[in-house]
């Protein structure tokens, strides 16, 4: 069972649809035990960082998530919340990745919205993916480059398109909205041991 963390914001339906299309059963939940016992966990996200952190704290998920050992994937805001700190309303985040989340300069076109390609792809999630493939991004805040960066994207400046540390994975792009190549990346995550 794949648990999708439901925190009442944004478009979670398309993540659920994308996973079910790949033949996996999902449960949409914010329940401590259901998340703890899931085979894999997906933490999708659009929304605002401090509101999402507040929700996690109310459900004690801020304590649970760092202790999890099964494969865990944060998407978009989900990746940002796995970092240490976000400039979005000065939010202390979960601190799994020792990475700061910063705001794109407002002198440029923001949000970064649309299809962009990745570089320096590392790890199992990018099996069958090339630097020519494009993924769909929509965000105004970005994760800095770090030793946990598993792929980079360049918009205004280079940033972490994805992060990985042990069982924790993050993606700034939306695999569920990135056509067939996005499904491939999700499938690679779902097939992790």
């Amino acid at each position, binding site marked *: 069972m794949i648990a999708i963390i439901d925190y009442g*914001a*944004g*478009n*979670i*339906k*398309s993540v659920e*649809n*994308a996973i079910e*299309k790949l033949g996996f059963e999902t449960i949409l939940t914010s329940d401590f035990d259901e998340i703890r016992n899931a085979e894999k966990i997906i933490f999708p996200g*659009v*929304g*605002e960082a401090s509101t999402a952190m507040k929700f996690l704290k109310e459900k004690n998920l801020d304590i649970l998530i760092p202790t999890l050992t099964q494969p865990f994937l944060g998407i978009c805001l989900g990746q940002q919340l796995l970092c240490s700190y976000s400039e979005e309303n000065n939010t202390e985040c979960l601190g799994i990745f020792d990475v700061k989340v910063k705001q794109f300069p*407002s*002198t*440029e*076109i*923001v*949000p*970064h*919205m*649309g*299809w*962009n*390609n990745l570089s320096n792809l590392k790890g199992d999630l990018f099996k069958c993916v090339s630097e020519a493939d*494009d993924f*769909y*991004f*929509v*965000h*105004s805040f970005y994760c800095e480059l770090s030793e946990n960066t598993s792929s980079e994207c*360049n*918009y205004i400046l280079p940033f972490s398109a994805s992060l990985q540390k042990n069982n924790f994975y993050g993606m700034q792009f*939306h695999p*569920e*909205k*990135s*056509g*067939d190549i*996005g*499904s491939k990346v999700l499938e690679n995550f779902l097939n992790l041991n």
Partner: protein
Amino acid sequence: MLKKRIIPCLDIKDGRTVKGINFVGLRDAGNPVELAKEYSEQGADELVFLDISATDEKRKTLIHLVEELSKEINIPFTVGGGISTLNDVDLLLKAGADKVSLNSSVVKNPKLISDISQRFGNQCVVVAVDSKQFETQDFVFVNGGKIKTDFQTLDWIKRAEELGAGEILLTSMDFDGTKQGFDVRLLKQVSEICNLPLIASGGAGKIEDFTEVFSKTNATGALAASIFHFGEVQIPELKLNLKQNKIPVR
């Protein structure tokens, strides 16, 4: 590199796709889910669905359509038409829409932009602006282009940005339906005063019109309807042509 987006727009009336010429004289152009799948396979980067029959009664039909679309396509899509409350937005996003497009309702009640943006994030707030030139000034029109407002287009777009819009969908009513190309003048003026992603709409008639809008303006996407529905411009051929002209596309 960020790619320029090609966005087919499907006007929905009573669950079917239609496209008006200069906002009147609707023609049936097919089933929206089938069209959406086909566009997605052809390489459309995003889709926009505008419900032009939006009444309370028809809204339920729209929600079902959005649910079906969310199951069938794996590229982003925007839904618009008659959205006037936070609850409307909540229902559409929960059904699987990625963004909502707002037009008349936010002109009447600009605070709705900030309310939606704060609750759901600015990435889902597309402010659609229908603009028409009078002498030397551009004015915002509402109610499907039927009613002129006192808002000047550039002022309104600036205000929408300040209130928390995430994207501007700019339709030039002077060019819409003419197939004479996009309104380069207006688009250039908008990108000088606004740092949001900007979708050009109205006037596309041939491949060269897309090349022109992307080489002469900062538009990040270009939208068209009937030329795609009736096969006058095919997306794979369009993208190949844009690539040959050094315009980054997926």
